[in-house]
């Protein structure tokens, strides 16, 4: 590794616990280091806390205990202004896209700048010229040139996720979180979306943490795979090291494995 263990975009999670109900932790003391580069895929069975883990990072879910160090701050302790400032540097891509359906495509992209624009100007849609130019550039990059004025609810699933990715990139993030970004898409579109994410994040060296169900996609695109089971990390390593034995540990059983 060329740079030190703590680059500007690194993320350090220590002893993260989340209990939705007291005494029933979903995350049972997760510790993970992200060195601020490449794509990390988190795999694991449904209900094992992958989504909770990702949402604890940008505090869409409140962690019960533990720390999340990013930019030299503990994200778990932030509130108000500080939390919003931290969120501005963390882009998020959602399973169901979570676009504002009744806004136009370009307005959805500009949502990525809302942390920087004051409320009156946002209300009047007076975004800085630089943001607007970047939005149209990004639309072209994600292959949606000419869609700017269309309403988000008129798009197909794949197109929506392209808007979702562009919105996250609009934030100029230092970290990109993706919560099952391909689970609502067909296999071909899933691959296209993963390629787009890797491509866009790679251009600006943005580290990506992605939850993903499809092991094949994780192995194909990620530089590192974290396997979770029952609220613990049971595998952490490069995709090539992930064996069927590991998958049995992560998901349990073996009947589902293709021989």
């Amino acid at each position, binding site marked *: 590794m060329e740079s030190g263990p703590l680059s500007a975009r690194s993320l350090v999670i220590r002893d993260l616990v989340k209990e939705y109900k007291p005494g029933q932790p979903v995350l049972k003391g997760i510790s993970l280091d992200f060195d601020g580069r490449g794509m990390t895929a988190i795999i694991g069975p449904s209900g094992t806390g992958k989504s909770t883990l990702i949402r604890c990072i*940008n505090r869409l879910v409140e962690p019960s205990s533990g720390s999340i160090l990013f930019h030299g701050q503990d994200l778990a302790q932030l509130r108000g202004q500080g939390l919003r400032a*931290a*969120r501005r540097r963390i882009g998020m891509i959602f399973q169901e896209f979570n676009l504002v359906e*009744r806004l136009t495509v370009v307005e959805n992209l500009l949502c990525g700048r809302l942390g920087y624009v004051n*409320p009156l100007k*946002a209300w009047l849609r007076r975004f800085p010229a630089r943001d607007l130019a970047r939005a149209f550039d990004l639309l072209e990059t994600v292959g949606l040139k000419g869609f700017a004025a269309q309403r988000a609810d008129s798009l197909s699933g794949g197109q929506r996720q392209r808007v979702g990715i562009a919105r996250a990139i609009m934030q100029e993030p230092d970290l990109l979180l993706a919560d099952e970004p391909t689970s609502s898409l067909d296999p071909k579109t899933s691959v296209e979306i993963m390629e787009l994410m890797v491509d866009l994040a790679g251009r600006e060296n943005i580290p990506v943490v992605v939850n993903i169900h499809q092991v094949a996609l994780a192995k194909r695109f990620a530089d590192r795979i974290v396997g979770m089971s029952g609220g613990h990390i049971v595998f952490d390593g490069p995709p090539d090291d992930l064996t069927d034995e590991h998958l049995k540990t992560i998901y349990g059983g073996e009947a589902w494995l293709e021989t």
Partner: protein
Amino acid sequence: MIAPAQPADERRLPRAGWLARLGWLALAVYIAYAASLLEITWERFYAGLGHGALFVARMVPPDFSRWELLAYDLTESVEIAVLASFFGILIALPIGLLAARNMMPLWVTWPARTLIAVCRSFHPVIVAILFVKAVGFGALAGILALIVASVGFVAKLFAEAIEEISMKQVEAVRATGAPFFNVVTFGVLPQVLTRFIGFSSYQLDSNFRVSTVVGIVGGGGIGGTLFAAFQRFDYDFVAAILLSIIALIMVVEVFSARLRATFQ
């Protein structure tokens, strides 16, 4: 897997509970009792038809000779309705947002909901009586009464509309680090705008109707003139006023339908 066999008596359609049946029975009994109290008889109904016919006969032809008074009063009613709708809806927006339980903590929604409940608890005519006592006869009392009614209605429906929005869209905007007001303008308002236009135009409709009535208690507009004409048995002038009100309401109806269609 085979489902365990159920005892025969469990294999029937579930019936309405005994409480619901008791409720229906109580309603039927009360209707019969209340009707008997009011002494509704066929003789009274028959005699009433005769009086009604006489009344209608005296209304034709409608007397439009005092059209200047009519036009002046109608204009005042329109002013009451428009001003009350404008300010009422303007005030209802923030109160509705504060009352939405998915956007605000309990200690904010509770007072907001109480305020809405107070606004809704009296008919606008009763509120108009209060304001006539407070600020005196005239349009101002009517306007204030209709503002109260508008706040109650629009804020309640607005709060309910906000409570039904998709929080996923709000969550996505929040995740960008947007401050609260930007979350509202980009995450919440786009989802409720058409519905908001819908019930605002409905309230405008309603305010036009009620603005013709508040005058009866001294709140300004055409209601006062209508009431006076009734008391002087000027039924032909009454007819003229009623026809004018119908025309006005129909125009408003068309206008608000157009408004809703534009924002759909």
